């Protein structure tokens, strides 16, 4: 009996696999699929808006994402996650967001979509076309670290550094929403982020220090 039905190659649907599937077979016009499918004769124009209600056929297709203020056109499949699009298809590669759990459990791929923290592994790239995506690479302005980044460096709020981009994004979003955030609110804002080296105490210190600076304190 052939049996590849294991967790490394799931044919049983996980939550995200289900989402990925919907991205491919969502009900809608076959014409759009013809236009966008790989067998279309002329090179298709990049997808300009999310395929609401349209069917996208499997295969590579061009999309344009707005990442850190720049338009970036790349070839992806409809099932490609935003995370994999940034890491594997964008030119140059955008690898600050990390692939760790690939199921929305660790927060290492946290990005901002229209200013809100999102797990890039839980979004399909085609669904965020036209939306404002900010990754860790877009946080420093003109080569100058943000107060949050600076505080992470000063307080030694990292060890191996693999979770660091995700934590910085979560703290950035929390402090921009509320520069007076309490420690408990910071913990809550970062509850979706995981650090295995155990740098949490210094991350908390860095967040509180950055908050103080952002409020104009010492």
């Amino acid at each position: 009996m052939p049996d590849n039905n294991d967790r490394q190659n799931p044919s049983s649907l996980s939550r995200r696999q289900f989402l990925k599937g919907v991205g491919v077979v969502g009900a809608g016009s076959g014409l759009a699929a013809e236009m966008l499918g790989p067998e279309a004769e002329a090179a298709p124009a990049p997808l300009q808006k999310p395929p609401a209600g349209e069917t996208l056929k499997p295969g590579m297709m061009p999309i344009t994402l707005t990442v850190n203020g720049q338009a970036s056109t790349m070839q992806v499949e409809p099932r490609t996650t935003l995370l994999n699009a940034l890491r594997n298809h964008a030119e140059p590669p955008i690898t600050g967001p990390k692939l760790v759990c690939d199921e929305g459990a660790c927060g290492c791929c946290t990005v901002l979509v229209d200013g809100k923290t999102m797990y890039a592994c839980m979004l399909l790239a085609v669904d965020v076309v036209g939306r404002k995506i900010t990754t860790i690479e877009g946080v420093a302005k003109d080569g100058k670290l943000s107060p949050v980044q600076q505080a992470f460096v000063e307080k030694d709020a990292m060890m191996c550094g693999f979770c660091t981009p995700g934590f910085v994004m979560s703290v950035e979003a929390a402090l921009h929403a509320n520069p007076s955030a309490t420690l408990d609110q910071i913990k809550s804002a970062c509850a979706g982020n995981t650090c295995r080296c155990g740098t949490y105490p210094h991350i908390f210190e860095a967040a509180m220090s950055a908050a103080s600076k952002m409020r104009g304190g010492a």
Partner: protein
Amino acid sequence: MAQQKPQKMKKIKTVKDINGVPTEVEIEVPDTGGPTWGPRGSHTILNHNIERVDGPAKVSGAAKYTYDVRVPGMLYGRILMSPYASADIESIDISPAEKIPGVKAVVALGNKSTKYEGDPVAAVAAITPEIAEDAVRAIKVMYKKRAHAVTYTQALKPDAPSVYQNAQGNIRKQGQRGDKAKADAAMAQAEAIVEHEFLIGMQHHACLETHGVMVDYRGDDNATVYASTQGTFTIPPDAANALSLKAEKVTAIVEYMGGGFGSKFGIDLPGQIACRLSKMAKAPVRMMLSRPQEFLAAGNRNGALQRVKAGASKDGKLVAMIAEQYDLGGLGEGGLAALPYIYHVGTVYQQSNSLHTNQDSSRAMRGPGHPQTSFAMESIMDDLAAKIGMDPIEFRKLNTADPFYHRQLDTGAKEIGWERRPKTPGGGQAYGPYKSLKRGMGCGCATWGGGGHPECQVDVFIKQDGSIAVQVGTQDLGTGSRTYTAGIVAEEFGLPVKAIETRIGSSKYGQANASGGSTTTASLAPAVKVAAVNAKAQLLAAVAPMLKAKPEELSAANGKIFVTSDAGKSLNWKQACATLGASGISARGQWSNELAGNGVHGAQFAEVEVDVETGHVRVIKMVGVQDCGLPLNRRAVQSQLNGGMIQGLGYALLEEHWVDSATGNMLNASLEDYKVPGTMEIPEMVSLIDDGDTREVVIGMAEPAAIPGASAIANAVFNACGARITSLPITPDKVLTALGAVKA
């Protein structure tokens, strides 16, 4: 015959094993006149907080890990792993995978059977990871399931299937010491006796960057292998072998790596498979394990089954111990530290065994073999202290002579407020809205050897333009080795850390040891120091004529080279370097025994709150006190200590590999279901460096930091509610069950 000059001697402090107890002693050693670190208080950079030199790269996403390396034409590798704990492979058909557009290489690994869930069976390389996943799914494998033994109870059954065919059962005897009859006789004299069976499951490293490599090979006579590894130099020989290249034609790059904790040495089977695929496709292949694969096939901290009986005299001396240990390391032999761990017991009889199961082989994990033994021993300590009515700290001091432990226990007790603890287990006032919350405190101690080896070759380069670089092929796992390497050079030359360019993580640079067993600092730092001293000697010799002085009359500090007795006679750094020839200075340093030490201790404390209605345990505060010789970067030492305690917290309350005895499958091979501590579990934490340790040597301290945290938490639970939980993790069901026993 020429009279020999009496050798100059000097006194140094070191740790010696006296009657099985690591004890600080002062010894005389020949004074070779080599470099020394200098006493505490003499440093301006070391023994201070140094900002991580790679901090800006890590907070801005610029740091490139193996997982981030992408080159044109690179393929994505994926491994098909066995879904069965034990099976024969009857046939395998890779042709459906080969037919998928975008698939560039498919290989059946040729194994006829599998011994654990996660055993690699076949692999593919494709132009996207999505297509690679389609391809492994398309491979048709015919398995014939065999009976498995995945749990220790299955493996111990008389009719258990042998995990290793042709082996007699699944137990492998590892050793025995002491005389059972003598231990029994000593036990008969004991005033108080405690006996428990301690059971701990497997813990996972859960490195955020999964194991993997990017093999940049395009069919030529050379290759570059990027690897997420703890040992840069462990990569080239094996990769060269797998690629049929000469070892010197393979360069390993480990610029950044996302956590290892003991699990990432060598190229590993996935690395070999990646090389094979790259060779077939004549294209670069990046092969990173998926998260489930990381749980199934990238190692674990071996579990442990320990049956321990111990007795104490009325006056608080440990008189007898009878112990039986089984390490549960799956297919591997994990090993456990010997009981009675750091304490002295009059008469000991101990037996140790490995028990094999059909699970992935265990690997080293921070303080390998120690947290398990610590949990058993420290639990026994508090139970005995309670039985004879003695304070657990006083009881510990009576049973270890080492002044390090006495000092560290006192320091930790003061910090956590030990006097506030209930004097008898469960004796505190219940509080909270339902009067269901009870608090308690506990502690535990650690020991680790560490030490250094003469492997590292460090180069320091100074150029005419004043640029200065230090170069060695070592790797930085997140411990901060890159930063202290810069710090040591900066300290020697009196320059800011930022002035030093640090190049690490390439097998093209000078040799360095793999990072395991807390040996990096004691191996690397001395060689860095010697290289800096050698470079400085060359620089001072070049500058001396300009300052009309002898080289030995010069000092370097505050960005200047000056005459020590007359600081007015000076050159700034740029002027000094301008005196160098066009080739500048190149100096190499090797390990110096006198700069490295070994033998560290550590005490950790926890205060917890137990809800006796729900069984939930919340850690309120943890305190760690850790010695490490000279702390090179205080802030990084504190980060390590925090991290060790947090991993201990996970071990105590959250983390456990669940395996289903019926199917043989792991049930929680994901970060959703295998819970590592998150922000909500983190208590108030205090990490203290034991400055009472004045040894003028450097010693690694990553392992001891991860050892006694779980023991301290288990003892705090016992102190809070009187429930002795003999199995980790301490989950609410176990607490409630144990409390039922207390009430009955």
